[in-house]
């Protein structure tokens, strides 16, 4: 289990299998929501998660693969591409402070 303080989150990465479709959609939505807090959001293939990511979000079915390549980062899974509660959780931690754990 990993933990990060909301105030320390500067870079959120959305990972999916190819980094071509679903992660792009999720990243574009989350980028709009996190823009006011100056947090960057990018998308990437799950096998290519950048070392400087603070928080990684991926489809729940890809969690094991995401964990393999990303050390002790906070990695959270989502079920829905459109408005999953985990997106609210990340935004709340960044907006209100508090810790985010996986």
């Amino acid at each position, binding site marked *: 289990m990993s933990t990060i303080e909301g105030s320390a989150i500067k870079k959120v990465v959305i990972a999916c299998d*190819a*980094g071509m*479709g679903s992660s*792009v959609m999720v990243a574009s939505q989350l980028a709009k929501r996190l823009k006011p807090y100056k947090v960057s*959001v990018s998308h990437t293939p799950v096998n290519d998660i950048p070392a400087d990511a603070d928080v990684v979000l991926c489809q729940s*079915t890809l969690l094991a693969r995401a964990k393999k390549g990303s050390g002790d980062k906070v990695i959270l899974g989502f079920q829905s*591409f*459109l408005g999953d509660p985990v997106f609210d959780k990340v935004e709340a931690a960044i907006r209100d402070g508090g810790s985010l754990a996986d």
Partner: protein
Amino acid sequence: MGRLPTERTALLTPEGVRLGRTASGRADAIDQCGQALLDVGAVSAEYLPAMHEREESVSTFIGEGVAIPHGTDASRQYVKQTSLVVLQFPDGVDWGSGNVAKLCVGIAAHGSEQVGILSSLAMILMDPAKAAELREAPDAETVIRLLQSIDEEN
């Protein structure tokens, strides 16, 4: 996160919008998306098996009756030009896990040029009325107008 498309229209053309289709199942629908991507010059034939491979590893069904079939990371080498195609299946296609797809957005991408359209797609699908308008679009112009209607800010 990637550069903005300078000519977004080139990503989705009327030739790539195919309405009122029928498919015998998910594999057939994916084949039709692959064929459409081939027809618009987006990919070479090797891309098609990768679309099935991707679907088997994780479903591309995203909700609101929409799936976004695309290849794997490794199959990017078969993408000649980043493009999207839109296929409408009014009778629905069984996409597994109880999901029924009435619209497929087939994707072939090199980089991030498709971000704008996919962002629009996500915005549309979060509004049930707009989602229905897209699923039931009567012509290619409507599909293209809807998917290009929302400004990309990323």
